[in-house]
């Protein structure tokens, strides 16, 4: 595992903002859990608590125009890439002001302009899509890269194999990131993977890989920075494994019968936010007071987001039939097929 890095490569403002983002994500998740319990948020909801250093470290290494794609555990990813927490919360509430107008919910955040190109709920399904987007960027000579996040368990899927091979063959500017949080649902890495070091899988595609501490935002950032530079320079795809942990169950429905409380406690001792907060204070980047103020601000920001989400209107029923097609087919038989169909 690569060692933690110097913080002074980054400006104080950026460091502060990274901490703030981690706090914001944590607060967003906690409030999401609360409103889920109150029945105002529904569907499958996968929280990011414990993994915040990943999203923030990854997004910090990307430039405007670069794209991030990931899976259903996507709140943190979208927020780190710049998505508005108001629109994000409104999406969870299923409102028309949501990131995708209430069509997607928790698992399907999307923010075109900020370069968060989707949470995908089919495990590993985002991987070939990301290779495709990065291939488009390469062909269009835009100089942008695509970073794609997956879970440890996703690496056992055929899409992983097929996509990494193609990305290397076609020299795509794509950074594959595995947030190894030790489990896929209740299945431990040792039960789903024949190799315990996930980054070792990259060798089968001759893709340079690194494994870093996913509880240390600077370690993630540094690894990503190098990977992004390499991929942007036209040398092809790269691979970053982050070793991390999710504090909560897989989703809100998870009884968590597959792991011990002690294990959870151990990981919580290396809480990524507490660690980074302390480090920034110790190294004089911020004061304890600033840190507290940031915590307060973040709380207010998320409260505001919830108020916004609550106050927003649900999508009109007419939205049901919108955006099925870009070019709505002229249906000679529209009147027939679609008493309750396409053209309504």
């Amino acid at each position, binding site marked *: 595992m690569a060692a933690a890095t110097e913080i002074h490569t980054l400006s104080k403002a950026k460091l502060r903002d990274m901490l703030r983002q981690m706090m914001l994500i944590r607060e967003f998740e906690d409030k999401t859990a609360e409103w889920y319990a109150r029945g105002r948020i*529904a*569907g*499958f909801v996968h929280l990011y608590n414990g993994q915040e250093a990943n999203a923030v470290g990854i997004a910090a290494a990307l430039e405007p125009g670069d794209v991030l794609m990931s899976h259903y555990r996507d709140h943190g990813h979208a927020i780190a890439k710049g998505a508005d927490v108001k629109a994000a919360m409104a*999406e969870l509430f*299923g*409102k028309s002001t949501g990131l995708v107008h*209430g*069509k*997607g*919910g*928790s*698992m*399907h955040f999307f923010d075109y302009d900020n370069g968060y190109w989707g949470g*995908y*709920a*089919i*495990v*590993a399904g985002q991987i070939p899509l990301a290779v495709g987007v990065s291939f488009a960027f390469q062909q269009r000579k835009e100089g942008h890269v695509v970073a794609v996040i997956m879970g440890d*368990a*996703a690496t*056992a*899927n*055929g899409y992983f194999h097929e996509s990494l091979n193609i990305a290397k063959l076609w020299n795509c500017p794509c950074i594959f990131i595995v947030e190894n949080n030790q489990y*896929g*649902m*209740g*299945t*431990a890495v040792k*039960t*789903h*993977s024949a190799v315990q070091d996930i980054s070792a899988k990259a060798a089968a595609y001759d893709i340079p890989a690194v494994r870093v501490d996913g509880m240390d935002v600077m370690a993630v950032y540094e690894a990503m920075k190098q990977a992004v530079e390499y991929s942007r320079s036209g040398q092809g795809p790269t691979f970053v494994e982050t070793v991390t942990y999710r504090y909560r169950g*897989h989703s809100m429905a*998870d*009884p968590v*019968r*597959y792991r011990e409380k002690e294990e959870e406690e151990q990981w919580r001792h290396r809480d990524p936010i507490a660690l980074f907060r302390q480090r920034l204070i110790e190294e004089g980047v911020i004061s304890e007071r600033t840190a507290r103020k940031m915590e307060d601000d973040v709380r207010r920001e998320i409260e505001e987001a919830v108020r916004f989400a609550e106050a927003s209107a*649900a*999508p009109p*029923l007419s*939205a*049901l*039939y919108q955006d*099925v097609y870009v070019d709505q087919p002229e249906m000679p038989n529209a009147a027939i*097929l*679609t008493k*309750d*169909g*396409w053209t*309504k």
Partner: protein
Amino acid sequence: MPVRTYLEAITDALREEMNRDERIFIMGEDVCAYGGSYAVTGRLCDEFGSERVRDTPIAEGGIAGVATGAAMGGMRPVCEIMTINFALLAMDAIINHAAKVHYMFGGKVKAPVIFRTAGGAGAQLGATHAQNFEVYFAHVPGLKVLTPAFPADAKGLMKMSLRQDDPILFIESTGLYRTRGEVPEGDFTTPIGSARVARPGKDITLISYSRMVLVAMQAAEQLAKMGVEAEVVDLRSLRPWDAETIIESIKKTNRGVIIEEDWQSYGVGAEIAATVMREAFDYLDGPIERVGLAEVPLPYARDLEQAAMPKPQDVINKLREMRVIR
């Protein structure tokens, strides 16, 4: 008779058959340590252990293929595909392999593998997690496709499945797991390919399968209050399927409506309607009608999703349109 949930009925069937036949084992994603994503297999994991209730990687194509191979090698795998949405990743293994080996190899080998999976919408899971693809499998010679609506049938059909030698898609419904019903005691099986009149009536035939049978039953209750006696036919199997029971009903009622949770275009109801209209043409006072899902990828927002889904009221509305009621 004892009352069991749909979920318990399936667990019971698996347990009883696993005790009877040691070749039977369960494999799938999160069937054991996690307890089963819909908790069907968790107790079996505790009882039979993680060798006979095996967690797999997330690799639907691979595991469906491995299960098929294990069946060819003499085992009786029950392979859980967590939901039918993910079965799209196992289509090749199921359709090009499990469904083919017996015929393609001249009857020299068989593949008695059960693919358990669940469909169903209504829990705000969005476009990729609330689909119903049973029609894809019902289309394929070599497969049998079962879609029980009631606990008793879920148990009887599962037990039957484990005592025959063909590959089976056993398609449950996430919306049914918590429903309750009487389940006969002792050892029993339900025949594959026979529909059941779930409620007798004389004025109109409501045809359905899986969770939509409950919607049909609710509609029938409301209709009864309006003085219309609807007969509800539960298909139970989609391949083979039992046209005769429906046709008998139509001969009596002269009108029929199919209720399905899937998109109507090219769905299960199309086959039922086309066949029944052909066979009962002279008995019909009007065409067989269909009530299905709005033809859109399902949205997350509750009101939108609910608007998209077939409900008892949609059946009532359809009957109004048909002038069966005013």
